[in-house]
């Protein structure tokens, strides 16, 4: 998963990387020049005659002009910087009419991701993963009804805050397929550190296939153990916080688990998504993400394996 500001994989990140290059190198030169001037000022050989009053006045005059020149130089450089920043900023604000609409809602300490559609019945709701088609702009609407978060995908674009009571937005036009790491960048409470949003950029065809897979209802339990697991899920504490479309469980307090097994991580980045970690997570969530709102469901070992069997089937 790449996540470096200077390894841009989208137009927006590329625009920002240009600003970085445009500001970093001149700054480096200015810094070295300053150090050189300082070193020269400290170690220059001082002829004895320097103290003569006439010479002192001449020096002061020369340095006065140099000060004026230096100030003009700084002002010019800063104006250039500001201009470069303004131009690239306009590239970030550009919007294409046919952009893909995605809505990301910040929760305490996970991400709800929705793909709205003009036909509401084709709308997709998932959690803790974001898929984007390469080459097409995606307008990500950001909202939160709890605290301020900030969605930041370094390889694709700068961060935007999710602020209760306001709707903010950012646009991303990925240019390279691959897996990128998104995360929360505004301190939002106990588990701000484990609020990762794995981003997958794929070809439009693969993206459409993924979206259709997400529209499908949850896969029915395949094994008797999974069937028991589904029963435990619906009748036990799980259904009070999680939703699996196609079952009675419809709560959004916790992430939607309809296609849990196809997601890269558990607990928004707290654990990799495989059987062992799913078992460990259900046995004691606080051990892996202390402070999470997921309680210890206090399932017996048998129930634990059944529920894990069921959840693993939810491709």
């Amino acid at each position, binding site marked *: 998963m790449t996540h*470096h*500001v*200077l390894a841009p994989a989208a137009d927006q*990140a590329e*625009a*920002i990387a240009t*600003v*970085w290059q445009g500001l970093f190198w001149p*700054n480096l030169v*200015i810094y070295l020049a300053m150090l050189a*001037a*300082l070193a*020269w*000022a400290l170690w220059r050989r001082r002829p004895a005659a320097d103290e003569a009053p006439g010479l002192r006045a001449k*020096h*002061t005059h020369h*340095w*006065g002009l*140099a*000060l004026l020149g*230096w*100030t003009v130089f*700084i002002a010019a450089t*800063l*104006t250039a*910087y*500001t201009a*470069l*920043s*303004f131009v690239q*900023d306009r590239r*970030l*604000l550009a919007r294409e009419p046919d952009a893909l609409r995605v809505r990301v809602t910040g929760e305490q300490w996970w991400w709800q991701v929705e793909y709205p559609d003009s036909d509401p019945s084709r709308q997709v709701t998932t959690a803790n993963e974001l898929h984007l088609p390469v080459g097409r702009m995606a307008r990500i609407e*950001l909202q939160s009804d*709890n*605290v*301020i978060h*900030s969605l*930041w995908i*370094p390889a694709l674009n*700068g*961060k*935007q*805050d999710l*602020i*209760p*009571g*306001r709707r903010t*937005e950012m646009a991303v036009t990925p240019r390279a397929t691959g897996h990128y*790491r998104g*995360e929360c*960048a505004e*301190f*939002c409470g*106990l*588990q*701000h*550190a484990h609020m990762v949003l794995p981003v997958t950029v794929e070809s439009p065809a693969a993206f459409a296939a993924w979206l259709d897979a997400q529209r499908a209802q949850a896969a029915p339990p395949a094994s008797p153990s999974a069937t028991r697991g589904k029963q435990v899920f619906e009748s036990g504490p799980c259904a009070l916080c999680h939703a699996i479309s196609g079952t009675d469980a419809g709560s959004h307090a916790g992430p939607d688990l309809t296609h849990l097994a196809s997601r890269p991580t558990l607990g928004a980045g707290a654990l990799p998504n495989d059987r062992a970690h799913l078992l460990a997570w259900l046995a004691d969530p606080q051990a892996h993400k*202390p*402070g999470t709102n997921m309680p210890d469901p206090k399932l017996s070992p048998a129930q634990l394996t059944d529920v894990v069997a069921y959840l693993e089937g939810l491709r």
Partner: protein
Amino acid sequence: MSARNADVEAQLARTWSDPPGLLGWLATTDHKRVGRRYLVTAMAFFALAGMLALAMRTQLAVPGNTLVGPDRYSQLFSLHGSAMMFLFAVPVMTAMGVYLLPLMIGARAISFPRLNAFGYWMYLLGGIMIFVAFALDAGPETGWTSYVPLASSDFSAGKRTDIWSQMVNFTEVAALCVAAEVVASFMVTRAPGMRLDRIPLFVWAQLVTAFMVMFAMPSVMVASQFLQSDRQFGTHFFNPGEGGDPLLWQHLFWFFGHPEVYIIFIPALGMISSIVQTFSRRPIFGHTAMVLAMVSIGFLSFGLWVHHMFAAGLPPLGNSFYTAASMLIAIPSGVQIFCWIATLWLGRPRFATPLLFVLGFFALFVIGGLSGVMLASVPLDTQVHDTYFVVAHLHYVLIGGAVFPLIGGFYYWFPKFTGRLLSERAGKVNFWLLFVGVNLTFFPMHWLGLAGMPRRVYTYPAGLGWEWANLAATAGSYIVAGAVLLFVGNVAWSLWRGKAAGDNPWDAPDLEWATSSPPPPWNFTQVPVVEDLTPLWTAKPLQWLRGLKSDKREMLLTSIAEARPQVRWGCPDPSIWPFFSALALTLQFIWTIFDPWGWVWASIPMAIAMTIWFWPKKSEPSSD
């Protein structure tokens, strides 16, 4: 050297001395005793906050570390930030002002000396309160910026954030007190002859800082009262539901927040100017340009706070305006750096430890300044805001820009404070240790920020390539700790066995070196007359003005522009009542955290204490 006879000094000693014992210690209004206390307390809080930083760095040394849990870590970074900003950086700079300003302008005492004592007690009690709260697992948990709604009572249970926001009130009351004293002293208590164009840069820096404090601190006090009112009474300042707005907190906070970092930085400019002037044995080049630069930084710093909120979805055109404003403030800094280098070029630099720390300032602060200019660009800020790049920037600017000049200032003014010189050999080791430590700690953080590591995370997963940078940072932080310990050791050793300093060990030009080290309670037996920007470097020996009584606490007030003597002013006597007023206000601040009736009942003891404090002294009007 000047003509001082023994019996006048003996009489002065009797009139200017404090009562003995604890009562005297509590009741002193001598700006030097209060100033020393300020410095010691500020350095104590610096050490405590430093230890918090060590705990944070140890937790982040390796990925997935379980040394510290998320809640404890939230308190660590919240208190580290709050203590450094509110309890160390601003107070230590104002403390240097409290101690040195009267001496530099040739005054016998600071104006409003009792207010000075009151300010210190408030600062001390506020600091104690927040650290006691932290010890009781009730430290701040929402960062030093404490954004709402995380800081609202829905998401920050209990009294933690209330205590934090009340601590802000404590420290801001203290800062406002010193600001008032500095401005008053600057205007009317200057030595005769010290016209506006003969005032040292350090004093100008303190004046600009004082005015900035007066305009910035009220903004955060209002914000913290709004927050407490939202949390306790259910008002809706920050509740978007009923028409409030979380961004109102950010605006109010950062309108104070950015000037705050310049309030920390500008006194450091003053110290650098004094050190560069003394150790290049030449008056500062472009004195007027330097003063104008400082004043323009003071004004500009109030016009660019929104660069902390570029990711909050504010209108793009507004953000671009703030990019320009933020870039603009780099110009005065550039001018100042140029003038210092010019002074060094024109002078004959002497590599004592204070100058070494100033050179450290050049190396570190300019990196911070330049990364600051990069942060000013909106697009770039959206990538690096709230990441470790910003952590690196703020530490380079604050440690490079304020702590290095401060420690240089300690090495420079320690002889004046204590009469003994700090060890030069230890000083040089101290400098290199600190310089290496700071760079090892914070330079890798630039890369960490670009590599995607967000701020304020109590741990991070392995396999992202962040391991080496974090380990290096942790190692660096231990080196910094070593450097600080070395500094403390040097101070302790020098207090006990340091070389005697005499009046002017560095052959410095300013007035504070015209009196003994440490100066007597009344600073100057006779009032010095100033004819030049660098009084002690003029060919003519310093002139002295006799005529102030020595059997009564008296000082000379001069006119604002020309500093012509005007009035002999009776200074207030030491009094215990500022201390009791501070206790009463502390009682009120703490009481109102738990019960709003505190505003009513606790104002009674405060009214009594303050009435007695301000009770007019029976002094006959000064005749001539």
